[in-house]
């Protein structure tokens, strides 16, 4: 039996087992005959465990809006279980909010329930969520950024409920937390328990214009000017700067106007500081150090370490490689520069390649490459206070909101609320979300990736208008970023929004030339100390440790 045949047979078996068409015993027996290891089998079997009582089917003609679906679920839906019930969800007024709203009529049609969606902009979302939790209890669920998690766990009884018990009940929509990539699952969990229901999976990688970097004329010009071969794609921070700098200020796209090397956005309160966090990751995190934010023993800020400082100095150098007004740009404005074909590089979220597929918004379909964020050759260990040398220190990140919903513990309609959220998390709907730009959703589940990582099929992406090669490049880079051994940890303690705001305004001040990087980061560290004191150093230390658990 050829190796290819074994692989095909195993994929067939896995699909049959996960869809509930063949029994667990039969699957294990047949897979063992193909020489599949017990370790791999145990992972696949556990992935199916959540619905093992549910007789999972690929789909149901009566309920085409969710797949796979259990027989119990089909019976449950026949009763229109939530007829007369209305749930209210608070969402971010942005693409992710639009993504959620897309599913409302479909869920309402299936279940008989109603969903009211309230939208608020990002700068008031945190306040709206927590004022509601403390006073009015108007909402059943909230769309949260992953950095709000610490605040949910300040009271003895958390503000939000664990969704584990629902996952075992086959009458609810079928999805499994075991499908998450580990780095992403962490953001939906607290101390090993799952609180969030799958929606978005954010991380920043580097998108670049393949066609521009591959052009022989550009390669020659670059070599003549910079002195080495044009890196395609850039592997180090220095290479990224050289490329951005080289393509700035001349008309490389032939439209008669000067173009730019890099697209960034840095408006205060518009998530621009994530660029800094992404740049700083390989300067601070490494196989030798995972602490990026605080010293876990003292809760003293690490934000003014030499590594962070080097990254901020780099960021200042990058800024002239794009329009100066990028200081006041929102995220969408940054994307527009790249999508309109006027920038070569953009380190950002997965919305960019998704939007790039839309010819109405993009001039770069089929021209976009994707790679992990370039690394560094040295990283500063802020705990030991020393620089460590590396051949190449590449660090993954989950920077961004990874926007998803959590259920209020004060909700009187937890069951329909969970049902609605889980409905969007079913495989069919999750794939729809991450292949459509308007939803603002990026892939965090294994099944959304192509084999051998996941079970996704490139046809599913092509059906949604993707260039097949672009989809592969995007998912490869995304997966590579999320599975790098060294990862930048995420800040998930109370006051995270406030810590980040203090950083945000100082980074912006440096970019605007109002302060120097060292002074700004030292000042930021002082502000962080004040926040830590307010929340209580010992409590923060404990929650910081728990946020890693």
């Amino acid at each position, binding site marked *: 039996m050829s190796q290819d045949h074994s692989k095909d047979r195993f994929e067939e078996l896995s699909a049959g087992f996960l869809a509930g068409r063949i029994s667990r015993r039969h699957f294990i027996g047949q897979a063992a005959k193909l020489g599949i290891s017990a370790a791999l089998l145990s992972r696949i079997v556990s992935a199916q465990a959540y619905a093992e009582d549910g007789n999972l089917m690929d789909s149901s003609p009566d309920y085409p809006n969710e797949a796979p679906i259990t027989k119990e679920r089909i019976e449950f839906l026949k009763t229109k279980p939530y007829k007369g019930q209305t749930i209210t969800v608070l969402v971010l007024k942005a693409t992710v909010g639009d993504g959620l709203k897309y599913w409302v009529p479909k869920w309402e049609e299936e279940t008989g329930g109603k969903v009211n969606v309230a939208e608020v902009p990002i700068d008031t979302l945190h*306040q709206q969520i927590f004022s509601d939790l*403390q006073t009015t209890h108007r909402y059943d669920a909230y769309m949260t950024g992953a950095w709000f998690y610490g605040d949910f766990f300040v009271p003895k009884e958390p503000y939000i409920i664990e969704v584990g018990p629902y996952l075992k009940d086959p009458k609810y929509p079928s999805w499994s937390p075991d499908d998450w990539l580990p780095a992403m699952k962490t953001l939906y969990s607290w101390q090993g328990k799952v609180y969030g229901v799958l929606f978005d999976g954010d991380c920043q990688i580097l998108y670049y214009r393949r066609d521009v970097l591959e052009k022989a004329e550009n390669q020659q010009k670059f070599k003549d000017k910079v002195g080495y071969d044009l890196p395609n794609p850039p592997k180090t921070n220095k290479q990224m700067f050289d490329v951005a700098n080289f393509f700035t200020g001349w008309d490389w796209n032939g439209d008669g106007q000067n173009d730019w090397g890099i697209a960034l956005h840095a408006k*205060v309160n518009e998530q621009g500081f994530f660029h800094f966090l992404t740049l700083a990751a390989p300067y601070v995190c490494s196989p030798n150090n995972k602490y990026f934010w605080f010293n876990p023993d003292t809760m003293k800020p690490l934000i003014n370490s030499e590594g962070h400082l080097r990254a901020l100095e780099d960021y200042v150098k990058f800024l002239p490689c794009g329009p100066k*007004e990028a*200081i*006041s740009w929102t995220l969408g404005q940054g994307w*527009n520069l790249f999508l309109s074909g006027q920038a070569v590089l953009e380190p950002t979220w997965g919305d960019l390649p998704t939007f790039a597929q839309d010819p109405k918004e993009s001039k770069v379909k089929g021209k976009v490459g994707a790679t992990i964020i370039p690394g560094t050759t040295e990283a500063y260990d802020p705990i030991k206070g020393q620089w460590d040398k590396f051949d190449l220190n590449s660090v993954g990140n989950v920077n961004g909101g990874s926007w998803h919903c959590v259920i209020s513990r004060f909700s009187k309609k937890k069951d329909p609320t969970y049902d609605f959220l889980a409905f969007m998390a079913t495989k069919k709907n999750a794939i729809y979300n991450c292949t459509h730009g308007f939803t603002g959703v990026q892939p965090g589940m294994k099944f959304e990736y192509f084999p051998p990582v996941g079970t996704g099929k490139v046809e599913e992406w092509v059906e949604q208008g993707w260039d097949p090669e672009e989809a592969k490049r995007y998912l490869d880079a995304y997966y590579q970023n999320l599975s790098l051994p060294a990862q930048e940890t995420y800040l998930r303690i109370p006051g995270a929004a406030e810590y980040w705001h203090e950083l945000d305004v100082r980074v*912006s*001040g440096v970019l*605007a030339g109002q302060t120097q990087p060292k002074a700004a980061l030292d000042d930021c560290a002082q502000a962080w100390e004040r926040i830590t004191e307010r929340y209580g150093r010992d409590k923060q230390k404990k929650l910081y440790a728990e946020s890693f658990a």
Partner: protein
Amino acid sequence: METIASVQSKAERGFKYALLAPSVIWIIALTFFPILAAVRYSFANYVLGEGITAYVGFSNYARLLTDSGFWYAIFITVIFVGITVPIEVCIGFVLAWIITIGVPGKKLFRPILTAPLFTMEVAIGYLGVTLFTDQGGLFSTILGALGIHIEWLSTASGGLAAAMILDIWIWTPFVFLMSLATLSAIPNDIFDAAMLEASSHWQVFFHVAIPLAWPVLTVAILSRVLEGLKSFGLPYALTSGGPGTSTQLFSVMADLTTIQFTDFGRGSAMGILYLIMVSIVITFFFKQMRKRID
């Protein structure tokens, strides 16, 4: 023995109190208690989810008084109000005067001049982003065609100037309307008599119109100063206080501290300090205005 008059007097008094009661309750509930609550919070350490964790005396105040960010926000606010209000008052009053003395098509001017007043500040702020952006914004394009390049939204001075221009655009009509009402209420005989004595409209403007309209103009100035000191929606939508904190007015800083980051202790102390400062300024302002009126 009570006389009929005293019974009537008591009844009248009771009726007066009954009429006053809703207003008094309203003021106590919505002004007095919130101020008391703010005073209490200003002496406390407040944590989201836990409430007041400790009373910290004057430390919130002490930290603020030594916080350069706090003073910078006050400074920027004073600059903002100090520039926008005089311009709004001058333009608004002059326009009202021009309409009063009669210009062709004045019926058309009134709705055009007052239109911005009926638009939400936040909407104007977001509109400002599209007007001032370097990427094809109307202002930038027109000025660029004239060879003038201003970095509106990427610098502190540009951002503040853009916010001021929009503020003047919105609020000049307010002064215009108040001035127009005042000037319209002045009998024409006075202006006619003055015109016989004066050599030009401007002499009447400076020596008759302004002095007669001054009491109402004072109220307009006061309203604009108070509104300007609380200005929030427009600058927030336009720049979010950036770059850095360079256009962060006091109200934006207070909102971030108190509402977004739920630091009620520090935020309340900010509010109380600001209230004291504004009260001193307003008292001084009133005294000066009264002197002029007298």
